[in-house]
């Protein structure tokens, strides 16, 4: 099961995978124990081996047989809550200081990525909007503001372990930091109409040097872009 996780290329992806493993092993032990117990009981107490059943109702004191394992479940639940809460806070609540900022807009059935350009401000002439292509530098915190023009979409990059719904009428802030250069796929994870399945984009993570080259190829050399 764990081997099906895609490659992780974000700084918080490791935390998500760690959480996955913790829950996987905790629940895995319970799962195996419960199924083995069930199977054992079915064989051991099958009528071919038994003349008579034991008479136990299990109310009162005997409910301890149920309540003690339940107490263990409770403790494990709370420890999962603790680890999970930390992961959640890191990804969704404690946004680190912004490096680059990009505005992302979902619309049937494309992703639009708007860059502020060299002036670093949105709403100016040097903004550029690129469809379905997100370019970011590796090792830099990228902040995004996500919205939608029409219906709900969900911005999902499996290799970043990042998902966030794009909600019309709201601008939702988020962040990620990619660690490895390469190209990765962006999916839509919320049913958004007949073209939902084809609403995919590409994330290109550049090394710092390549990213400068890419910026130059879009906006020209720094001195000409500066106004």
């Amino acid at each position, binding site marked *: *099961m764990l081997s*099906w996780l*895609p490659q992780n290329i974000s700084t918080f992806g490791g935390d*998500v995978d760690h*959480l*996955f493993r913790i*829950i996987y092993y*905790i*629940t*895995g032990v319970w*799962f195996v124990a419960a*199924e083995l*117990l*069930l199977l054992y*009981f079915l064989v051991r*107490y*099958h*009528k071919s081996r*038994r003349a*008579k*059943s*034991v*008479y*136990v*109702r*299990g109310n009162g004191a005997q*409910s301890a*047989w*149920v*309540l003690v*394992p339940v107490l263990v479940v409770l403790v494990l*639940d709370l420890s999962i*809550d603790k*680890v*999970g*809460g930390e*992961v*959640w806070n890191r*990804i*969704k609540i404690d946004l680190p200081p912004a490096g680059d900022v990009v505005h992302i807009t979902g619309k*049937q059935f494309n992703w639009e990525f708007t860059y502020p350009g060299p002036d670093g401000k949105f709403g100016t002439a040097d903004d550029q909007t690129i469809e379905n292509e997100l370019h970011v530098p590796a090792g830099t915190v990228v902040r995004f503001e996500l919205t939608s023009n029409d219906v*709900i979409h*969900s911005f999902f990059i*499996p290799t970043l*372990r990042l*998902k966030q*719904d794009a909600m*019309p*009428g709201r601008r*939702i802030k988020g962040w990620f930091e990619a660690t490895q250069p390469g190209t990765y796929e962006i*999916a839509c*994870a*919320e*049913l958004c*109409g*007949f*073209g*939902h*399945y084809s609403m*995919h984009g590409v994330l290109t993570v550049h090394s710092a040097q390549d990213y400068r080259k890419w910026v130059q190829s879009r906006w020209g050399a720094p001195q000409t872009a500066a106004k």
Partner: protein
Amino acid sequence: MGAKPLGRAANRGQIGKGNTEVATATPAEIKIGPTHEEHPGFWRSYVFSVDHKVIGKQYLGLSLFMALIGGAAAYLIRWQLAWPETYVPGWGYVEPQQYNAIITMHGTIMIFFVAMPFVLGAFGNYLIPLMVGADDMAFPRLNMMSFWTLAAGSTVLIASFFVPAGPASGGWTAYAPLSARPIYTGVTWGQNLWIVAVAIEFASFLMGGINFLTTALNLRAPGMTLWRLPMLVWMELIAAVLFLLSVGPLIAGSFMLLLDRVAGTGFFVPDKGGDPLLWQHLFWFFGHPEVYVVGLPGFGIMMEIIPVFSRKPLYGYKTIVWGSLAAGVLSFVVWAHHMFVSGMDPRLATPFSITTILISVPFAIMVFSMLATLWGGRIELTTPMLFAVGGLATFIIGGVTGIFLGSAGLDVYLHGTYFVVAHFHYTLMPMVFFGGFAGLYYWFPKMFGRMMNETLGKVHFFFTFICFNCVFIPLFMAGVAGNPRRIYELSSYDFLKPAQHLHVIATIATLGLLAGQVPFVINFFMSMWKGREAGRNPWLANTLEWCTDSPPPHGNFSEPVMVYRDPYEYGNPDAPKDWMAQNEPPAEPAPQPQAGGLRLKGTGTV
């Protein structure tokens, strides 16, 4: 009313005007035996019947019919996912828009028009009055109306297949604004009819829920205290209360959605100042309790069956009841776990994550109690027992995978993937279909007076159990690989190429799962006419439905029923045999049965 037998007239008296009816009944009017109209005629007997048993069978028939449509939809979905854009035998090509419509209708039908009528409508209606020792539901006409309202809702939903632009295609959750404006999907009347059908269905189960609640609380036979109720009655009761308390907001929401579509309002449309998140809150405030509405009765069925075929009392009866009540209360404060990444305030995620994961506690109580019931038993693996323990075995997977999704930090990744799909099929299938089939095989002799064939039943079980697991275990893996659900075909994503063969396995297993239902259909109809005569109590079970004829006469019991003990007295060493029916008088002179328990009921004076 005057012609009621004495014992039941006394029961009836408690809900309304007191016991005056007993006093006014003249001796000539008091007779024992079936007391409704003597020859009601075909329409009154089989179509517009007020008899809860006929209505229960009608729910059963309707749910199995709708399951055929839902199953056919599953076939189309699975075929398209395994072998995209190929000719589907018996159908043709599946187009993207059509695909979205099929998944929408599959979910809608299976939840609202199969699961609810099956485990609530059929088993609740058929069994609650029998199990509590009543002659019918508290409000028989309301009961009939609830069924025919549901039939109307089903008709509207089926009609939506045939309107121009096709049926709803916004997902079974109908998230606005996709569902709120025809331009986004191209679907016009299909979505409107979907909303109307679902709203009618809610109205139907509101009526049904009132009946369940009133009957289980007020029509219990003398001696049937709350702590002596069979667990299925408890579960139906809790389910009914959860439904009654949660559905109101969504009925309102569905009207708002309809108005957004046809009257130009903007409750859920941001351009007009509305908020799409409002729909999600309304939907899931109902939607999560709804999971337990359809789930708890399935658990109840398993808990009826496991003691009978282990010949042991149900372990921890009171703990289970308290646990189920706790699950019911918790189910009202977990709904936002469906919305962790929806854009709601992220600070809400942690409290909802904690409540969600805490739900594992009451369910652990139920699972451990069932395991403890098996311990030390004398287990007989009949078909109903196989389905019950098979359901338990599969539910454990559904339960533990809920922890993954309930943890908000991990849900960031797993939300909206096949992991979710596999998880909820692993919770709903065990509770609705394994539980439901277990119940059908178990109560079929009561319903039709004949036994079902055990060999065919076991073939049905093993096909269903093995194929079901082979469908959904691969889908967990696809989900872990990041495969989003509701994707028409995977090939547009490179990262999903390795998951493609998982879908092929799942589809082949689905074909096996569907084929595995054929023995059931044959068995069902063959046994109805040719099965071995069942007699009153073929399983040597204790609950009250087994002390009357199979099938029970109109009015259920030919003599007044008295309850002396708990429902699961199996293997009691003080008893002469290994079972003691709830209505079997004790050997020594009986003390007058007391109305004990929670004292929600007066005594039925005899």
